């Protein structure tokens, strides 16, 4: 969704790693995915190599940011899985297509989100064609506001 909003064409299947990471449409996506994989793995030399690649491709600040995001989501996934929270209703409604595309329903913690009523599923299906467009428009509006703010402050 962030790709839609920033105007980038992004292949969400990149979260599965492998070849999809290289074709994600995200700048230096393959290096970032390799870094995330190595950081969660047990191979110290693979992590050294992945870290060096991010540093070379994106620079020191981005390396710190990437490590910080890795730490953040090691936290968030555990909060979600250890408390049995269901998906928030709006998120549940608009991400159905993406979840199916990524096969996320196969994860054990999917059991924490009940399938929902027929009405809810219908609303989700009706919203689906508009979701990507809504995010694109939101991103465009945010970019316009940001440009207006920076012009006003300069």
């Amino acid at each position, binding site marked *: 969704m962030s790709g839609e909003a920033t105007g980038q064409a992004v292949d969400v299947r990149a979260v599965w790693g492998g070849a999809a990471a290289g074709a994600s449409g995200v700048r230096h996506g393959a290096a970032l995915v390799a870094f995330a994989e190595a950081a969660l793995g047990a191979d110290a030399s693979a992590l050294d190599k992945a870290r060096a690649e991010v540093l070379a491709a994106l620079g020191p600040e981005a390396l710190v940011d990437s490590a910080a995001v890795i730490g953040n*989501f090691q*936290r968030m996934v555990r*909060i979600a899985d250890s408390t049995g929270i269901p998906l928030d209703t709006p998120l549940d409604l608009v991400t159905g297509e993406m979840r199916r595309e990524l096969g996320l329903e196969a994860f054990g913690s999917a059991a924490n989100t009940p399938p929902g009523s027929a009405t809810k599923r219908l609303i989700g299906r009706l919203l689906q064609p508009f979701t990507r467009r809504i995010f694109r428009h939101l991103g465009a509006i*945010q970019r316009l506001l940001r440009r207006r703010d920076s012009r006003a402050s300069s």
Partner: protein
Amino acid sequence: MQPFSYADAPVPVREDLTDAHRRAWQNLARPGNWWTGAERVAIADELRAASSCQLCRERKAALKPNAVSGSHDTASELPDPAIEAIHRITSDPARLTRTWFDELATAGLDDGHYVELLGVVVCVLSIDAFHRALGVVLEPLPRPEPGEPSRRRPEGLAPEGAWLPMIRPERLGEAERGLYGRSAMSANVIRAMSLVPDAVRELRSLSAAHYLAIENMQRMETNRALDRAQMELVAGRVSALNECFY
């Protein structure tokens, strides 16, 4: 010397990250709502032990975690259900179930102790993960401060479909005003630990430095060296590797 000097880091570390980590270490050492400072530090010690626990390794490799029995390799004197919770949350979070959670409660780990334990585990684990990713040695754990836990249960808790009760933004009591920021809406993952409000405050503090402040979640542009799509790609890959549906 202050903790988190990052003198051995291969690249400079942002000041807001250093500050957030120092705050987290100060809070870790203090008594919480349900555990003493010594017990909170013991929880952190235990989660570090989980990474080399033989039982955790065997369970992770098994088709079903319950298929393997035995004892955890422990580093503390914490009660058995607490040790089981710390090790499983650390090593195999994707296969936690409501049944597992209920068994912990039956064994004596009540919801307040569980949520605070979770708050400590995820706080320390995320800082350790940052260190490991960056190639920095883990920070030694702080010296516990004396004192008793407050045993305070916040008002406004209600069941909302999770394993634990949570507080809706409109039901926050005076003491918790602003717990979720200015927004009238708050995602379940932010409210999940609201049974222990300080765990939510810690989560917000760390998330603002590691990722984005709650107030900026809806903004697609960031003030980081990574753009939002790059951040989400890293986040998505970490979540997928952890098999997290949420």
